[in-house]
């Protein structure tokens, strides 16, 4: 489904701020794979997501999604195939527009936008049903401005918007990190329900190792711009948080050794 091959990215190349964020990433996902991605701050998780979404151009390598070469497509064109939820609840919705308008914008992802009505009556009925399933009572407030919603409500709405038109790949970048524990739990459950229930292919970045193990069928660990660990199926299910911590130790020890080599 998703084939990432030899993707590298260096920010601010040739300046003092040069930062190698991704090195020769290779990652293949099967249809229906639900991958959780973990790794320390600055490991390159968000950058990897942004490469797939086309937020910045990549330095080299290719990205194919469902047979389509995305490598040089602009962000708005790739969006036709992708669903995205961001860490910041403010980023995924238009605050000054109504809930139903936001949904209608999302429902038209990848379609030409013309002079037909922005929201039709049939759509409203559909959105009412979809919102009801979130269980947050938003179906009663469809004409309310999204800016009035709480962070958790906005994140749930963004998740619905990302999946309203079935994406080939769903990208979730720490989408529960800004929420209180209870709301985060709720949004995570919704995510699992939607992704597993509809057999979506998804990548989810999280800092919660328990969640990373419990959710999805595959786990990827990143460190310093590389994928250092990739497990799936039964092996993943058997993982313990302690195993992951050990892996982290191993990776950061390696990094430390590198630093020492540089210094000596």
């Amino acid at each position, binding site marked *: 489904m998703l084939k990432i091959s030899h993707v590298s990215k260096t920010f601010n190349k040739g300046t003092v701020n040069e930062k190698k964020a991704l090195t020769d990433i290779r990652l293949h996902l099967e249809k229906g794979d639900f991958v959780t991605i973990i790794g320390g701050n600055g490991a390159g998780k968000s950058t990897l997501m942004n490469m797939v*979404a086309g937020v910045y151009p990549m330095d080299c390598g290719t990205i194919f999604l469902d047979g389509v070469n995305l490598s040089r497509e*602009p*962000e*708005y*064109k790739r*969006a*036709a195939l*992708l669903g*995205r939820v*961001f860490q910041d609840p*403010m*980023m*995924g*919705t*238009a*605050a*000054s*527009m109504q809930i139903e*308008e936001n949904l*209608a*914008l*999302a429902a*038209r*992802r*990848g*379609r030409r*936008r*013309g*002079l*037909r*009505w*922005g*929201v039709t009556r049939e759509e409203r009925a559909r959105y009412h049903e979809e919102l009801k399933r979130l269980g947050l009572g938003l179906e009663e407030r469809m004409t309310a401005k999204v800016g009035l919603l709480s962070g958790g409500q906005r994140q749930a709405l963004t998740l619905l*918007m990302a999946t309203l038109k079935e994406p080939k790949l769903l990208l979730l970048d720490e989408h529960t990190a800004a929420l209180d524990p209870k709301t985060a739990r709720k949004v995570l459950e919704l995510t699992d329900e939607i992704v597993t229930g509809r057999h979506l292919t998804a990548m989810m970045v999280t800092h919660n190792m328990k969640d990373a193990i419990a959710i999805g069928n595959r786990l990827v660990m990143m460190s310093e711009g590389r994928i250092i660990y990739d497990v799936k199926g039964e092996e993943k299910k058997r993982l313990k948080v302690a195993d992951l911590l050990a892996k982290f130790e191993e990776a950061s020890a390696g990094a430390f050794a590198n630093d020492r080599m540089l210094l000596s």
Partner: protein
Amino acid sequence: MSGMMLAIQGALGQGILWGIMGLGIYLTFRILDIADLSVDGTFALGGCTCAALMVRAGMDPYLAVLLSTAAGMAAGFVTGILYTKCEIPAILAGILTQLGLYSVNLRIMDKSNTPFLKVDTIFKQLVDGTGLSQSWVSLLAGCVVAFALVGVLYWFFGTELGSAIRATGTNENMARSQGMNTNTYKILGLALSNGMVALSGALVSQHQGYADVKQGMGAIVIGLASIIIGEVILGHKTNFAMKLVSVLVGSCIYRIIVAVVLQLGLSTDDLKLLTAVLVALALSAPVLLEKRRRAASYSEAGEEERHA
């Protein structure tokens, strides 16, 4: 009628014609969240194109207004390209277009001022046709055009395309991640906005009887004044159609203020300063009032203590 009443009636007619420019500025300033300074240039472009077409080429006044609007859209398109494709900051992109248009306008008219002599302006035709006074005609004709535009804008921003432009102005990141080509929508918005500004420029110059390369000076500030006065008077919490109408109301009130101070003996040379002060006051008043309110309501005692 007293001099003051006549002045106010004239002000309303002017207010509505300039209000059309206010609608255009509202599109960029409030919907797209871009401060577009091309406006000073495109307002004059509208007038100059219209004058050149009518006086030099003998064109029908309605057709001339239409083509002037198209010229304004082209200018907005240029600003849009500079801003999006060339990534020049919006303010600077607008200033570049504005500066360039000064020369363009001089070229179009071949001089700095063109009176509408020996040609029938829309307003003259209407005065002759209806027998009403010039100020009534400009008020009525202005209202017809302005309210038709409000209707069209209300419809347009309810469509898929209009919604996409609104989303682009509200949250570009969201717009792109939902597959919208935000550059295209910004260019489109700037073109539509400047089209309306040039339309207003063409009507205003026909109304005042001449076009001048300097007629757009300070137009952006006058437009902002109209928007802000309208918001202060009719409030933020109205629906979209009322927000557009409030721009027209704001524009009329601005013209009445101008008419009154002119009657009181201020010279037209002082108007620019007056406008600048007015806009600065209107922009800062809500901020200052809020600060005062907060300072006044602060107390060292906790809430419960105070209420106990």
